[in-house]
Every structure is written in C-alpha cells, then in structure tokens.
C-alpha cells in the first residue's frame, strides 16, 4: 500500500542522556558499531517500500545532516519521492521554531498536500527496531481505523512503563484511554510513537489543532481526540528499544554482541543500511586479544577488548584493557590503560596509563573530543 513516511528526529534528549547528546540529536546517536539511531527507522521505511520520506529535525541537527547528506545509501536518492529533510525556517509569516511535534509537521504541510499517497506512517528517529510497516498499514485498513498506534506490552521487559505513553485497549485493541507518562499507569501497554493514518485526515487534524494554538501530536491529537476518533493499537512483539537513558544506550549496544540480534538487524532478510565510511579492514596486532567484541572497520587493536563495542577507527594501545564499554568512532586509547563500564564518545584521546572505571549501574561517560 502506498504511504508517505515522516520521521520525527527533532527531539531533544532526555536529561539522563545529556552528556552524549550535547553534541547531537538523539536520532544521530551512534549504535551497534557503525550505525546511527535514525538508520533503523529510515531503513525500515525504505525496506517497507515507502519511497517518499521526510525527516523533521530541529535540535542540534548538524551531525544528522552530515549523516543524511546523501540519500542513496537507503535507496532514497530518487526523482520520484526520495528523502526530504525539514528544519525550521524563517519566512515573512512565520519565525517560530517548531512549537511541538504536530507543529513541526504542520509547518511542512505541503509535503502532505502535494502528495497522493493515501497513508502516512509517522515514526520517531530514536527507536531501534526492525519492522515492515506494511503490516501495520494493512492492520489499519482491516480495522478501518482513523489512527493506528504501534504499541508493546512492557510487562516482563526492562522498560519502565512510566516513561511512555500508556494505552488502555479494549478486547478488539481499540484504544479507550491514553495517558502520557502516567503516575499510576492503568496498563502495561506502551505506545511506541509510531502512527499510521490517512494523509487527508492528518492534514485536517493538523489544520484544526494548530489554528487553536495546540502543537503536540500526542497531547493535542491522540489524547484530545481519543474519544472522537477510532484509534487502534497494533501490538508489536519484536525487538524494540529506545535510547531514553544511559543504561538503555549501553544495553542496545551490548545487544549487538548477541548473534540472533545481529543477524535479525544486519543479515537476515531486509537489513539496516548506513552511510558508508570506506575505512580499511580492522587490524589486530600481536598483543591483540578481542573477545566477545564488535569492532568497526579502520580500528587498530593492540590490547585486550572484552564484551565491548568499538566503533570505526578506534585505536587501543598495548597492554590496555577495555571491558564492558562502548567506544565511539575515532577515539584513541593509549598504552596500559584500563577502561571498564564506560562510554567513550567520539574523538576522545586517553593518554597512556589512565584508568577509567565505572560500574554497571553508573557507567562513566567521556564527552566527545575530551583529552585525558
């Protein structure tokens, strides 16, 4: 079924992720050794045969722009459709930043009005999952819904339902109620922030709410219209994660050390694409000892690496030891260093004989470009 895609990548990070997101939008967070968070939604769109995709960004979008500078890696460099990147802009009538998620789409409403695809899939740029959106679109059609929200039962997961929009569904999965980050959740079903609706309905809703000075997709459309519209929940039970705090960030990366998760995302069937960087193969010198480790291309390993994710072009010195850590692109670990339970952001230089040791509960975070 023909659909448009909108990826909301404008979100500022949760306070808890701030040390890593001072320099980038959450959607641009490096994940899994050579990806960025947005690669997942973007690849899902491309793999679901959605050929016209808008990425809406606002907060700290430079690294995101850099990453999306060419659309061809996702097969979205096209004459028909392709990738659109929308940032806030000034005009005679309007000098606002995006005042909310609904406003960010409304300010680019010509993307919707100048299309003829019957459906729109709205996704967020910071979730890590793999799915064929045709499944939720078909479900949406089958239920004759106005809005379909992808949701997941968070009971028996490491996710805290208090952090999400919580949905109450009836036996037919029609939504009865929705509460954003509730104090007392009435169910364990969380909205994953992925919505399907008819393009014409979305245009109508956006025009109505923005004219009333309401700007938020969840608060002013989903919650406010929860009784008026026929909103359905689409239960998703595959792998899903979001980068809403430091532990989630570490867990997502460590998940890539598991073969089944790697295969699911990267080799089986449709897989996740990213911008290539053309680094040479990774090099293991004589003292190298990498166990249970993901190593990006262009890296040079001299020391011990255990249960860790090294992104591209990471250098580890002789007799150094990296354990339970995430080391981002271009960072250099000197000789005789010990790194444990740490997140080392990009282009960090750790000089010889340093120790950076965190705990599983409280990993140490070293910000981009730091020299220690």
């Amino acid at each position, binding site marked *: 079924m023909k659909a448009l895609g909108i990826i909301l990548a404008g979100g500022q990070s949760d306070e808890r992720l701030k040390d890593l997101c001072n320099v980038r939008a959450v959607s641009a967070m490096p994940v899994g050794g050579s990806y960025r968070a947005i690669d997942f939604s973007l690849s899902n769109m491309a793999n679901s045969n959605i050929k016209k995709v808008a990425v809406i960004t606002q907060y700290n979008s430079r690294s995101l722009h850099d990453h999306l500078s060419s659309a061809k890696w996702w097969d979205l460099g096209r004459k028909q459709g392709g990738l659109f990147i929308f940032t806030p802009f000034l005009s005679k009538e309007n000098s606002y930043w995006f005042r909310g998620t609904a406003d960010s789409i409304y300010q680019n409403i010509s993307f919707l009005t100048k299309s003829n695809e019957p459906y729109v899939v709205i996704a967020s740029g910071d979730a890590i999952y793999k799915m064929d959106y045709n499944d939720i679109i078909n479900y949406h059609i089958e239920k004759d819904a106005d809005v379909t929200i992808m949701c997941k039962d968070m009971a028996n997961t490491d996710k805290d339902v208090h952090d999400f929009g919580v949905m109450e569904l009836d036996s037919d999965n029609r939504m009865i109620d929705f509460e954003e980050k509730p104090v007392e959740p009435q169910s364990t079903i969380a909205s994953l922030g992925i919505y399907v609706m008819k393009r014409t309905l979305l245009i109508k809703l956006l025009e109505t709410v923005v004219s009333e000075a309401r700007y938020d997709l969840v608060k002013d459309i989903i919650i406010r219209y929860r009784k008026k519209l026929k909103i359905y929940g689409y239960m998703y039970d595959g792998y899903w994660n979001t980068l809403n705090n430091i532990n989630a960030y570490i867990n997502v990366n460590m998940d890539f050390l598991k073969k089944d998760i790697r295969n699911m995302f990267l080799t089986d069937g449709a897989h996740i694409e990213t911008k290539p960087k053309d680094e*040479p193969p990774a090099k293991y010198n004589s003292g190298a000892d990498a166990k249970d480790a993901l190593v990006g291309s262009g890296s040079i390993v001299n020391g011990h690496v255990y249960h860790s994710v090294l992104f591209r072009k990471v250098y580890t010195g002789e007799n150094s030891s990296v354990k339970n850590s995430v080391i981002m692109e271009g960072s250099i670990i000197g000789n005789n260093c010990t790194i444990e339970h740490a997140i080392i952001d990009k282009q960090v230089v750790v000089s010889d004989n340093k120790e950076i040791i965190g705990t599983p509960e409280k990993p140490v975070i070293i910000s981009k470009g730091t020299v220690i």
Partner: protein
Amino acid sequence: MRKKEMLAMLLAGGQGSRLGVLTSKNAKPAVTFGGKYKIIDFPMSNCVNSGVDTVGVLTQYQPLSLNQHIGIGIPWDLDRKNGGVTILAPHVKGGEQGDWYSGTANAIYQNIGYIDANDPEYVIILSGDHIYKMDYSKMLDFHKKNKCDVTIAVLEVSLEEASRFGIMNADENDKIYEFEEKPEHPKSNLASMGIYIFTWDELRKALIEDSGVHRDSDFGKHIIPAMLGRGKSLYAYRFKDYWKDVGTIESYWAANMELIKALPEFNLYEDFWKIYTNSEHQPPLYTSADASVTRSLISEGCEIYGTVENSVISTGVVIEEGAVVKGSIIMADCVIKKGAVIDRCIIDEHTIIGENVKMGTGENVPNEAKPKIYNTGITVIGSDSEIPDNVEIGKNCVVFGKSTADMYKSGKLESGQTIDIGGIDI
C-alpha cells in the same frame, strides 16, 4: 559537455595468468587485495583523489565481476552527470566485424571516439594491475611544467631487476632519449610503471599512424619508440613511494602479508588518501569469547569464533569454533568450518572448507600441472569451491569446484596435486 583537462583510460582487460586459479573467473584487476579491496580500486581511488573525474575502464578478459564491481561508479564518487566512469568493452564497429583489443595502444585507438567526446587536453593511461597510491595531478603539473608530449612514470629499481622492465634512458633533467624494453644490459635503472600522461593531440596522431603499421599496437613496443624517433618531448617522472605488481602467487601473498606488519610500508589507514571500494554495506566484525585474533587484518561482516594469526580476511567470512587460520588469505564470504586448520593458503571467494580439514601440510613439492605458477608452498582454492569434511590437502595444491570426499585418495590430496572440477585450465 564541459571540457575535461585530463581523462583517465584504465586498462583492465588483462588476465594475469600467473595468478593461476585466482584469475580463472575474473580479470586480474578484479582480484581481491588487502581484505576488502580489488586491485582496480587503487588506480580508481587515485583518480578521484587526484581530481580526475572521467575514467574509461577498458575491459576484455572475463569482465563480469569487474562490471559488477564498478557499476555506475558510486563507491568512487564517479556516478556523475558530466564525466564519471564508463566501461569500454571491445565492440563491433559499423558494418565490419569487431576487433578484440590486440594491444595496449590498440585498445585506446579503438576508443578514440570516447576520448574525443570528452575533449580532454591530456590523457593519462593507467593499468589496473598495481597496488600504489599516487597523485596524478602532481604528475600532470610536471608534464605541463616541462612542456612534455609524454610523461612516463618511472620507478628506480636495482640494475639486476632492470632487465625485467621497460627501461628509460634519460639525461640529467630526466628527458628521455632512449627506451629499451627488457634490456639484457640496462643502462639506467628507471623502470616504466606503465603510467603515461599524453597530450591528447599528440597521442591521437600517434595512435592513428601506428594503427596502420602494427595490428597489436602497444605503448612500450611501438608508440613510445615512434614518438621518440619523431623527436617528441618525453620525460621520466620519478615516483618514490610504494608500488607493487602482484603478478605471481608468491608476490601476491607476500604483498598481502606485508600489510599485517605493525607499521607496513603501504599505509591504508590514512585519512586524506582513502581507497574506496564497492563493499556492499557490511556490519562491524565480531570476535567471540573463544576467538583469538592476532597480527591480522579482518574486514567488516566477519564472524570469528576460532583462531586467526598472520592472515588477511575479507568481508563476510565466518571462521567457526576450533578452526585455525595461519598465514593465509581468505576472500569474501568463505566459511571455514569447525576444527579446520589452514596454513599458508589462499582461498578465493564463496568457498566452504569442511570440518576438520587440514590444509598446507606435507612436503613442498611444486604443482605437477603448473609448476611455474604454484611452487612456493602456497595452496590455492578457487572461488565457489567446496572441500569436504576431514580431508587433508598438501602444499602447492589447487582445488577448483565443489570437490567431494571420493576425489581424495585415502582422504588426502598430496602436495602438488590438482582437483579441477570447473574444467577451466588452471
């Protein structure tokens, strides 16, 4: 079309027959090198890094893998509206029968139309056979500064080696007065690297003239001597960096192994002269809790569960638990099954090595069928081949195709023997 200052013609039609089974299904420029690269990536990347954005690639021998590799040139940023990469295959010309490319200069002669359409001032002739990084724009500056008709890139070799090369005899300003092809008693040590910059008008004239004289028109044998004879201005451009012709199994193996050194002579880890290749996007590589990897290059998409030492591993290779790979080159998408031990072997793409196979054992006996190609102890397995479980393979062996246990007498292929199921003369 905008005028191009310099256009590159890349000769990629050669077989490279001394690489044996490695070039049975693809031309030498399409042979894997340094883990993730193909040999042609080096001159292609040199072109874009030097600002040459119009490249004609001349193919002839087994062009399929080369065509697939190059595509429309995306990995090298050569997918351009103006210029870009063009594959130039031999073709039938109006009314007559077509001609194969019968010599290096003849191949260019047959594509004069392509060059004219781009209207360049200069043409650089490259070959797709060598590993090196070179800034062709500096060579062009030299060409312009000396008002040359031809500039020939040369390497200073030892006098003993010189008789294997085309040798330039030049004056103190490096102006060439004589050219000798593989001289018995070389007078100089300036060896031609097969890289020429011509002022296009001059080359065009020379090609047309020579086409009437030699059917197999060749740069070294015919064009260069003819231009010298006519008093044209030819200069030698000295190149002092790494340059390798990986023309034999031994030199191919050694050049790969050289990359493993902590500080190799040829540095791939340089930010401002990247080598680009068409590696379909691959995930990062994974080494398991039981893996041991030292002194090796491992490419993206590999999954290592066994032991790897002193080896170069291409993209997407799986090395299972208990397998040991030493001193070997394993090309893309091979699977080395549990318990296999591989010592000093070259295994071409998409090959499966069965469980507990032992390779590279026994005496160093030259290959019986091709002693000149396989004689340094290295066993070579062709692409898309299979080795059944539990067999043993000696040194200087060649296996090509999906072999089965019954082809191994008492479970063994003695040193120097060949199994060729492909029926291709390897």
